[in-house]
């Protein structure tokens, strides 16, 4: 029995794998690794401690005042530095209003919000406290731009609540270029005659399409009988209850344009579709503000009760037709690059082909076999 136990013990000892760090060098290596991990943990703990004590930094860039927890001060400052040029270039002098605001960059896991004098605005972010770069400065910059817009429009009724508001948010230059390129695609692909005529250069139609015309009459928004008939059919299909009480007009509309016009005139304006998306309309407003220089946005803010055509003319300080013509030129210039290869691109590809083939000629393969 005892002998059997010895055998079992011996087998057990032999089957146990060798401990991983038996030599002095290996032990030293493990100690160094442990020390490195300890340093990382201590750094994370320090950051957490500084949060619990509520230590914050105030960052001032341009008219923006931003408060952030000390451990994330650097990336937040970089984000604010990225955001300010976009805010300043869009809002111009109106951005002066932001001077009295404090934007607080705040992570919900951070605990209590710093006590600050109003007006203040919380900009919620997600921070990875243990990572070397706790937060992405580009993400911070976008949130700061959005926060600036909220602060600037805080006193305006209907900010972001009405479907076709005219107030703008700052955006990076690349985004603005993309939006105007998308306006080109939208203008080209809209099936209505008004949009097609706008594309061909009829400014009056551009005003109609963008909702900046003096009259909101359906006859001018859908100028041809085909447009009107197509619209009535669309409304009958999508919102049949809107024209249920006007059945006779609906049937006669197929043959008599006058009845279509009467039918459309009798429908409440909110049931009539917009000719372009709000995004494209915003490109006009943005363009007008840019034309208006540093006081452009301030004038737009003062035109809250005026029709869009008047507001963009006021913002730009130019007649509305000039603004729309300038906008159209900008849209046409922003046509997306199609698959066509430019002469330079083509020759460059051929050049790369020649260069790489030359490398093959110079190979030493045959000298080594």
């Amino acid at each position, binding site marked *: 029995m005892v002998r059997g136990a010895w055998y079992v013990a011996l087998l057990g000892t032999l089957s146990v794998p060798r401990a991983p760090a038996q030599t002095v060098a290996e032990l030293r290596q493990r100690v160094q690794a442990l020390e490195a991990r300890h340093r990382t943990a201590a750094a994370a703990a320090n950051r957490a401690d500084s949060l619990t004590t509520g230590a914050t930094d105030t960052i001032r860039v341009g008219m923006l005042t931003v408060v952030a927890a000390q451990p994330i001060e650097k990336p937040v400052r970089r984000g604010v530095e990225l955001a300010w040029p976009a805010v300043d270039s869009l809002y111009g002098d109106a951005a002066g209003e932001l001077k009295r605001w404090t934007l607080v960059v705040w992570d919900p896991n951070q605990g209590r919000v710093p006590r600050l004098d109003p007006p203040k605005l919380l900009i919620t972010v997600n921070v*990875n406290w243990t*990572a*070397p*770069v706790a937060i992405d400065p580009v993400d911070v910059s976008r949130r700061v731009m959005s926060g600036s817009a909220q602060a600037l429009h805080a006193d305006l009724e209907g900010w972001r609540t009405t479907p076709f508001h005219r107030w703008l948010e700052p955006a990076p230059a690349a985004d603005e270029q993309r939006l105007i390129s998308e306006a*080109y*695609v*939208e203008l*080209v*692909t*809209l*099936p209505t005659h008004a949009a*097609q005529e706008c*594309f061909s250069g009829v400014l009056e139609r551009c005003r109609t399409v963008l909702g900046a015309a003096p009259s909101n009459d359906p006859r001018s928004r859908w100028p041809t009988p085909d447009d009107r008939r*197509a619209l009535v059919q*669309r409304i009958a299909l999508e919102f049949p209850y809107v024209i249920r009480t006007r059945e006779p007009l609906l049937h006669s509309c197929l043959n008599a344009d006058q009845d279509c016009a009467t039918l459309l005139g009798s429908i409440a304006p909110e049931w009539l*579709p917009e000719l372009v998306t709000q995004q494209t309309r915003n490109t006009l407003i943005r363009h007008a503000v840019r034309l208006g220089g540093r006081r452009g946005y301030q004038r737009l803010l003062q035109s809250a009760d005026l029709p869009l055509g008047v507001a963009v003319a006021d913002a730009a300080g130019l007649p509305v037709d000039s603004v729309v013509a300038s906008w159209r030129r900008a849209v046409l210039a922003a*046509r*997306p*690059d*199609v*698959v*066509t*290869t430019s002469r330079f*691109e*083509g020759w*460059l*590809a*051929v050049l*790369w*082909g*020649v*260069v*790489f*083939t030359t*490398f*093959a*000629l110079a*190979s*030493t*393969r*045959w000298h*080594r*076999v």
Partner: protein
Amino acid sequence: MFKVVFLTQWKWSRTAVLAGVFAAFALPILSVQQAGVFAGPTRELPGHARRLLDTVQTWGIAYPLLALVLGVLVAVTAWAADHRGRHVYALALPVPRWHYVLLRFAAGGALLLAPLAALGVGALLASASVTLPPGLQAYPVALTVRFGLALLVAYAVIFSISAGTPRTAAIVLSAIAFLVAVEVLAAAVHAPIDPLQFLGSRVLSGPFGIFTGRWMLIDV
């Protein structure tokens, strides 16, 4: 001599070339077929032109991908037999190396003309088969030209790597593996470096720039 090199290369790579011909011909036709519901008699309905563009765009990635795959396959097969035979056949020929390399390159290039022509024919047929909404245009010739240039670049790059010694190929592959390892390590420790993105942006703005952009048979 070109004829002999061409015929042997055709023998080695005909499966890839024939598959490429089929794919290149079918690609534009399939893309237009799928988008066809938004063209034709219903093309003037609201939103149809936009949806047609979106559908064609989803196929856009397939063209540069096909060019890359074909370029790689034909370039690799061009040198595979030489590597296997330790270049004895090539050394036995009464031509200098540069002449032989050019023959190999030209033979592979000539084989790639077949899928290029197939794409051109397919794109022309596909464009002719739809009535586009106003404002949209078909670009069959431009698409074929871009595809041809992408084929040339992909083929030349891989051809030059394949023509090198195994040591050269090992260095290139090791460099890529090293970058991938650095990328993985950087991600693991949340380090703010991204070597693959850095290299990718330079490669895409350099030799592989032709592969970028909107590869759309139908566009604004």
